[in-house]
């Protein structure tokens, strides 16, 4: 598993290990967030049974402990995710640059190579944010939800099932829709690339266009491409919305 993480996110072995730590920290942190729920449950039942008097100190201690727990576990999350990814990022950038350097130059023009490099470096930054923020959070949430649901099941399997069943269904929808979504985003991506290329070309050939009095005409064509991006973006947004809506509907019910 560590190996796979290394490959998927371009991490070193230490980085992958840290990422796993991040998952665990997030899951633990999420679980500590359930502690207050337990306390409030106790409180409610005490109130209903009218056994509240005299237990003030007991509750005060419980509350303080759980807030401290939450803060400590969050500290772990913070350290395991933010810190380790940023340390990792330096390593990744150097190895990326090494790889790029080894690509035969004839493969790209000099300018393209520069462009590719800066794009890749920007992607590295995106990956960084993803790894430090979203990925551990998501995985952690999945783990802690599963644990919580399993423990509910332990008490009452019917209730557990009632809570759990929508999750696989939602996942199924997401998987089924992936194909369609992929195609949609693919096409809107193509349109976007076309615009980016068009803008680049427009700037590079501006001198030629101007000396031919053709700049307005060229711009008209480029505007057409921009409009196409707008249209495609809307289509793919609607497409995605349909699936997300149906998935989250099931989750909510």
């Amino acid at each position: 598993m560590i190996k796979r993480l290394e490959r998927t996110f371009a991490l070193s072995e230490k980085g992958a290990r840290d990422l796993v730590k991040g998952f665990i920290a997030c899951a633990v942190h999420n679980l500590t967030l359930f502690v207050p729920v337990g306390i409030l449950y106790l409180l409610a039942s005490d109130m209903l049974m009218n056994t509240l008097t005299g237990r003030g100190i007991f509750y005060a201690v419980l509350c303080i402990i759980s807030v401290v727990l939450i803060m400590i576990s969050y500290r772990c999350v913070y350290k395991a995710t933010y810190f380790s990814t940023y340390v990792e990022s330096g390593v990744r950038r150097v190895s990326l640059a090494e790889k790029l350097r080894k690509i035969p130059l004839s493969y790209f023009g000099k300018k393209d190579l520069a462009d590719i490099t800066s794009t890749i470096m920007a992607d590295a930054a995106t990956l960084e944010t993803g790894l430090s923020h979203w990925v551990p959070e998501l995985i952690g949430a999945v783990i802690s939800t599963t644990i919580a649901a399993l423990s509910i099941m332990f008490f009452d399997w019917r209730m557990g099932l009632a809570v759990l069943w929508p999750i696989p269904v939602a996942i199924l929808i997401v998987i089924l829709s992936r194909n369609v979504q992929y195609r949609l985003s693919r096409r809107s991506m193509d349109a976007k690339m076309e615009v980016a290329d068009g803008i680049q070309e427009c700037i590079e050939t501006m001198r030629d266009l101007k000396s031919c009095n053709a700049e307005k005409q060229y711009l008209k064509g480029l505007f057409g491409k921009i409009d196409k991006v707008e249209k495609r973006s809307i289509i793919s947004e609607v497409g995605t919305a349909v699936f997300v809506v149906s998935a989250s509907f099931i989750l909510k019910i």
Partner: protein
Amino acid sequence: MSKNNDLERLLRYAGRYKALMYLSWVLSAISAILALLPLICIWLIIRDVLASEYTMIARYGAYAVALAIISMLVYIVALMCSHIAAFRIVANMRKEMLSHVISLPLGVEDRFGSGKMRKIINDSSAATETYLAHQLPDRAAAIATPIGLIAMLLWFDWRLGLLSLLPVVLGFLIMMWMTGERMQERMKQYQDALADMSNQAVEYVRGIPVVKTFGQTIYSFRLFKDSIDRYEKWVIEYTKELMRPMIIYTGAINSSFAFITAGAFILASGGITTEIILNVLFYVIITPVISITLTKIMFKSEEAMIVHDAIMRVDTIMNEKPQSDAHNGLVPSDSSVKLEHVTFSYDGKKDAVHDISIDIPSGSLVAFVGPSGGGKTTLASLIARFFDPQEGVIRIGGLDIRDIPKERLMQYVSFVFQDSHLIKGTIKDNVKLAKPDASDAEVLEALRKAECMDIIEKLPDGIDTVLGSGGIYLSGGETQRIAIARTILKDSPVIILDEATAFADPDNEVKVQKAFSSMLDGRTVIMIAHRLSSITNADRIYVLSDGEIRENGTFNELLGKNGLFSQMWKDYQSSVEWKVGKEAM
């Protein structure tokens, strides 16, 4: 701060879709309020349960679910609206920037660099998308939710309400402390460090294959590594700095339960009633909603900063002054070109051309020669008004070129560049650029005159071959010949030819010269020559060096002067002999 201005700026790009943007906010706020209503259903359910009254519970439950679903649907409609408006704003931003760019003098593109300019036009506009499409509607919801919540919290039991709001206030204070002015500055530092790193990476990757020397490799690698280290150090310091506030913040927003517990005790000390139990239970259920809402607001400011940054970048382009354009019916009386005391500088420090006065009669052939960097291309570009001189006047047919509408000026002047760029498209598209309504026969005729037939013949689809795709690229000389064909088709009275500095093969060189000579008759021609043999018959030759005219006269006059030109001629001849000699071997 300037964030409201940013928003105003963005909304101006929305055009007719502005209303859609506002609608999305309203819908999003409505959806947020709708999402709170199920809480009231829950309150009703708890009340009934405590009163052992079970008949209405199922109905309340159904209401709650229905309200939740409606709220979600409204939210989706809101997002749809905001997305459509956001896409329009991005599209309009790009269009407006591009329209602005084509009105700028050409030097601006060189100054920015085409890659950077594209990034600003394409990426900075796209960077506003998330903000517009998601953040703003969410912000509307984030404003509506607390208002609704506060109303509700205070309505049911103001004491518990106030208590559960306390952590919210705490969270806010901490957040403000974290995202103040300093944060903005930090964000900028972060962006700078990223940009620096990316630049060094480019230098490193690009430099290696060219400069093979070992020392250089180490040097550029050092620079790159240093920039990475700097970034890493900065980021880690920053993360450390933020750790404490983040932990406290997390603790604070998650501590509402403790306050409720305390509240329960305070209330219970006066004796427990069903109503108290009901309210405590209710608050137990809704306090998590508060922390969720808060977390949602948390991310807002970050995006707002990205947008602010993007707009600043956009402004670097939009603040460039466009070139003036005349709107009148003035027509140059002939094709003479006259420069009067023209001075121009790219950077405002060093003059690229200095105090130049030249008189070119209609229909004559003049040549600009001189060492590389002498200012030949610059001077010729001024005549085509690619930029305006800081001092002096340029006249074509007696008119100041600033008084000639740009489109007409370009009909008068053609420029064959030292390094022409072709657009991605067919050869025909490229040639027809100058004259969109030209027939195929005209295009072919121009290509023939420009000695391009050998290029056309080796292409798979002739003049309909798409360039730049399927590995079809033209060499510099070939590109220049296509550009000449374009100019021939355009048929303007003034022609500027900027000979390419170096040709890979002599065959190409001969063809370009032949193509040039087919354009000479009857026009005013300014020829920038590196091969001095091609200008022996020029009416007048100007020798430019360091942006000034050193000598001028006919070929023979200049040779007789024994000055810069005769030296250049000697050098040229020996280089030709050397080349011929090498070929003979």
